[in-house]
């Protein structure tokens, strides 16, 4: 058989030595309080953010991917939150950080972190996905695991002040001011245009909190714009300024990058919303089933347009589908964990998931997506992902047609 790794079911005639011989931890005194700030088990050393070799020329304009294949539920531990930097990251002194509002406002304003953190805040669970997530796969299979195919995706509880509150304090002109420019304080001073309609809804946050603590330095400490449903580049890190204007700003990362090339050579500009998407994370590419028998296929689904309504799973490459179970709570513009029973009979299989959101949008397969958008876009690849299970238990990234 092809089962290279023995399932951990070691058993001698009258019992497993791991039971019969009591382990040291059952017969000794353990460690004193860990206190301070804790860290994962030594046995979790393989669960790390990673770069994709050769993807970028520098490590300051680069990406590290979250290990989705090893994660549970919907919350991303902040230590594993994906990174995307355009000019490196900084650990900014929050006592010196300032936030400015200018442009079409009655009076431009300056806020300290102390002041921002005194204002009424909200806490909301949202996904963040890089617009280039799965971008390496537009043309063909390029990378082996879901860490690399889908790992520019994370989900956190963000805490911050609705931007609309701050704009109101500055006396923003909400009728002329149809757009907002958000600007970071790092070297790239990342700039992106956000339409006022999103801000007015109260969804866009000037956030300092992530999963109960402050943002991590690599994710924008001490201040980041949170733009639910919109690609990560708009979630400006080290946020220093918001300007209210009457037209979009055509910044570098909305004119040269994060523009989607269509087959006719036209680029779509200001593509922002992350359309409905899903991926099976277990089993997934680069993994190995240890044995036949029962498995729970699980994965993540999300939509930039609201809630996930349904996820279907196929194990025959898309011919037949079953509705998966969705974990509650199902939240808007947030990851949703799904799962589906499966008994593996040892035969080759192709596992897929397909998400449907509350607008009725159905996640497309590669054929459907490429028919409209071709293969050259880089951005916003939300095609159905296929994992091929081989008879020897190896699971591989494949595309089917």
């Amino acid at each position, binding site marked *: 058989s092809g089962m290279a790794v023995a399932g951990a079911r070691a058993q001698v005639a009258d019992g497993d030595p791991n039971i019969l011989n009591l382990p040291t931890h059952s017969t000794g005194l353990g460690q004193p309080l860990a206190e301070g700030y804790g860290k994962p088990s030594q046995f979790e050393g*393989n669960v790390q953010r990673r770069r994709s070799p050769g993807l970028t020329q520098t490590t300051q304009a680069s990406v590290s991917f979250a290990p989705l294949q090893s994660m549970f539920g919907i919350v991303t531990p902040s230590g594993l939150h994906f990174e995307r930097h355009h000019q490196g990251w900084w650990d900014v002194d929050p006592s010196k950080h300032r936030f400015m509002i200018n442009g079409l406002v009655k009076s431009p304003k300056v806020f300290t972190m102390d002041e921002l953190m005194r204002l009424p805040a909200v806490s909301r669970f949202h996904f963040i996905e890089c617009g280039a997530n799965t971008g390496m796969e537009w043309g063909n299979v390029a990378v082996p695991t879901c860490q690399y195919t889908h790992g520019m995706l994370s989900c956190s509880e963000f805490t911050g002040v609705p931007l609309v509150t701050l704009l109101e304090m500055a006396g923003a002109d909400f009728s002329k001011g149809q757009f907002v420019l958000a600007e970071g304080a790092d070297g790239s001073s990342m700039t992106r245009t956000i339409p006022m309609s999103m801000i007015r809804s109260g969804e866009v946050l000037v956030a300092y909190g992530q999963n109960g603590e402050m943002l991590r330095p690599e994710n924008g400490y001490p201040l980041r714009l949170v733009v639910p449903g919109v690609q990560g580049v708009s979630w400006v890190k080290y946020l220093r300024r918001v300007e209210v204007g009457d037209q979009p700003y*055509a910044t570098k990362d909305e004119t040269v990058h994060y523009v989607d090339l269509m087959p006719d050579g036209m680029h779509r*500009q200001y593509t922002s919303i992350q359309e409905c998407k899903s991926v099976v994370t277990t089993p997934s590419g*680069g993994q190995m089933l240890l044995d036949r028998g029962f498995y729970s296929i699980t994965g993540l689904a999300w939509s930039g347009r609201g809630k996930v309504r349904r996820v279907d799973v196929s194990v025959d490459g898309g011919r037949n589908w079953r509705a998966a179970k969705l974990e509650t709570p199902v939240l808007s513009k947030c990851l949703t964990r799904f799962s589906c029973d499966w008994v593996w009979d040892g035969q080759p299989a192709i596992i897929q998931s397909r998400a449907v959101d509350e607008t009725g949008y159905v996640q497309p397969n590669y054929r459907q997506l490429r028919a409209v958008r071709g293969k050259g876009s880089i951005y916003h690849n939300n095609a159905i992902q296929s994992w091929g299970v081989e008879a020897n238990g190896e699971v591989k990234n494949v595309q089917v047609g």
Partner: protein
Amino acid sequence: AGFPGIGRDATPREVAAWDIDVRADFKGLPPGSGSVAKGQEVWEAKCASCHGVFGESNQVFNPLVGGTSADDVKTGRVASLARRDYPGRTTMMKVSQVSTLWDYINRAMPWTQPKSLTVEEVYATTAYLLNLADVVPSDFTLSDKNIGEVQQRLPNRNGMTRDHAMWPGSRTPVDVKATACMKNCAAEAVVTSALPDFARNAHGNLALQNRTVGAQRGIDTARGAAA
């Protein structure tokens, strides 16, 4: 609802210090100018080490220049973008607003010393890049006065559209419309793409990239493909 004690008015000098953005309509562009010749000087001193003397280098970042033609300058559409066989996409092929170049060089370049350039240096290096792409001649001086005309020669100035459903507030309907077929769907479950066996280990040993306990293990790709 008031929030007594929180926030204060920004001073004009404060706004001036941070309000550096330059918009497509050139709002925010400071008056000034810079020649291609001056640009070449600055370029060779401060930019070429990363981007190459002709903006062609792929060492530190993707090439800035290349792939545009005199015809593109006329049409405002970069023809090579519609070709599937063209090797890469340079900045100059994609950029649709000259303000974007000015704004970005001004805020972020050079890479290790962003915001260190004078206004003249920004005009000059922008002019130099435009000259490399044959948008302006070698004796050109770019300024706030003529930048609007230069915009009219940018190779890809007509190459952008906002007519799609992913720009919030757009009324364009969603472009990709799939249906959720459940049984005997028209799927040809034929593998059309997969990693070749020789690339098994190209991302490192996947056994070390998966938890060592759980429903699955990572494949030991250091070992070579199974028979």
